[in-house]
């Protein structure tokens, strides 16, 4: 890698030993991809993936403390993934004990570290930092040092920013030195599509199921999706962006997709069309039968596969304002049809604190509360990642949550029936 004189001086220790190690980390990271150079980060703000004060992750907090003690601060402020705890979310006495006394005992300590490192504000805890209400929304072409797979794939694909699938810690180290290695999704060549995915379904495909199918097929490659505009339109309006948020999160968690192009919809596909597709790109056709096959092959890890669900999580990644409103309408209508006044399974809708703040200003908030649905800023994944929850039959329409926990996936329609009418589906 060729470094500028300034970068080389940092690597040689001109700004201290810790800064030299941070630079060494970024150089070695780039060398692993034969990156020729480091390029400046141009986004206003950063986004970090590590939001949780898990006792077992103390090596991370020790490293953060080293950075703080050495005074090697980033010039950028940042948002960060959702908090792992919220007392509004139903939990047993034992769960609360495990969460507060065993697992997340470092939460307050780590949040203090985050504030010192440059946290945007106390409400900047969300995986959907790019939402208008939150305000950490990069511009097209900006270079980022973000982590959080669902945010990275959204920033690249829907916003046209440029960011690799950086890991936690690398996210803040890039921001501290102000540079990231130039490779992969930062380059024009790296943004070209290796796959053509043809959508040939007879109805609008479920976003989370479609994303899962594509992620598992293409892994870390870039897919160019043809035929989806028929179902979600050619305008990046609220509904389309919400769809792509959920679709992208599933591609990134069920595979390792960092960028997708949707023909006639996402910015680079609109500008460059099929010239984005590499020669000899592979083809994957998705029809109703393929989605059904993918769905049926998900393992069910509940001890009792016929157990009655004890909890439902919606919002991994966090729900948009549009989603909260449309689900309020759907839950109300389904309850009325079922002759029920409140949801029959404890149900939590999660969203960014700033999105919830806006939602609470609308009349939808009182209506949703009347249905018994709880709203929260929590990270469902962090809530579920413990042996107690493994024994708990939790349902979700999030394919990301399904992938990382014992939560069982159902389509949106099935979830709606389950929470308003009952049964395990």
């Amino acid at each position: 890698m060729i470094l500028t004189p300034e970068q080389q001086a940092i690597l040689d220790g001109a700004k201290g030993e810790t800064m030299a190690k941070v630079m060494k980390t970024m150089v070695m990271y780039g060398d692993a991809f034969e990156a020729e150079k480091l390029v400046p980060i141009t986004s206003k703000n950063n986004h970090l993936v590590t939001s949780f004060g898990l006792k077992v992750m103390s090596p991370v907090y020790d490293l953060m403390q080293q950075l703080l003690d050495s005074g090697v601060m980033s010039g950028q402020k940042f948002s960060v993934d959702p908090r792992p705890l919220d007392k509004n979310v139903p939990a047993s006495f034992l769960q609360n004990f495990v969460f507060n006394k065993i697992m997340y005992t470092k939460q307050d300590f780590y949040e203090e570290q985050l504030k010192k490192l440059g946290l945007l504000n106390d409400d900047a805890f969300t995986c959907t930092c790019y939402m208008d209400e939150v305000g950490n929304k990069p511009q097209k072409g900006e270079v980022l040092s973000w982590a959080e797979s669902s945010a990275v794939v959204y920033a690249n694909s829907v916003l046209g920013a440029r960011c690799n699938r950086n890991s936690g810690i690398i996210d803040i180290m890039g921001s501290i030195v102000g540079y990231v290695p130039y490779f992969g999704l930062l380059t024009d060549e790296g943004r070209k599509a290796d796959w053509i995915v043809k959508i040939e379904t007879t109805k609008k495909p479920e976003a989370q199921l479609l994303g899962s199918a594509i992620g598992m097929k293409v892994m870390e490659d870039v897919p160019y999706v043809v035929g989806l505009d028929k179902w979600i339109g050619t305008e990046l309006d609220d509904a389309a962006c919400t769809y792509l948020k959920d679709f992208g999160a599933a591609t990134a968690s069920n595979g390792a997709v960092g960028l997708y192009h949707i023909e006639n919809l996402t910015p680079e596909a609109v500008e460059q069309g099929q010239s984005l597709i590499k020669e000899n790109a592979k083809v994957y056709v998705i029809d109703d039968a393929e989605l059904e096959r993918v769905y049926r092959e998900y393992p069910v890890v509940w001890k009792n596969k016929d157990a009655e669900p004890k909890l439902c999580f919606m919002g991994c990644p966090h729900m948009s304002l549009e989603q909260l409103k449309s689900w309020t309408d759907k839950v109300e209508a389904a309850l009325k049809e079922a002759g029920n006044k409140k949801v029959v399974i404890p149900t939590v809708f999660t969203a960014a604190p700033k999105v919830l703040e806006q939602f609470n200003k609308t009349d939808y908030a009182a209506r949703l509360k009347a249905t018994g649905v709880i709203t929260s800023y929590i990270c469902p994944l962090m809530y579920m990642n413990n042996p107690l929850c493994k024994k708990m039959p939790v349902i979700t329409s999030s394919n990301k949550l399904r992938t990382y926990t014992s939560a069982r996936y159902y389509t949106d329609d099935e979830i709606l029936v389950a929470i308003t009418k009952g049964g395990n589906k």
Partner: protein
Amino acid sequence: MKEFKGRVVTPGTVTAKAVVSKQGFNTLASMQMALQFGDKQTKCGDQNNPDINGKPLCGAALCLPQTIGSTTGGLVLYCACAMKRQPACMLFANHIDSLAAAGAVLADVWVDDITMPVIDCLGDEFLDYVKDGMTVTVKEDGTVVVE
């Protein structure tokens, strides 16, 4: 016995028994629960990966195509190394991905007294040949001997 030549991402030499994932290795799903709840063998907890689910990863020669999933992957790997519960080596059939690379580099730069050789670009033939329990030796120059 067969020899494969890969690219050295982080150097070192080691001999260990192979644990083989034919599909993408989801670092968060595989390691988080084990690290969190004190499993010293770091048994894989990824229900979606039947190849390795339930198998001990600590001290194993982890053979895989690439890692996938959450961008916490690199820091989970870094934590495993800092806690001395990491695989003996990681051997990638494909080019290493950005998350595994981050974990390997972070461990190399920031953790003292740790060696986890990481070799990539070993090719599909490597993953076809190596089976669970085979003895794998990693040499300094990126040569991997499987027997």
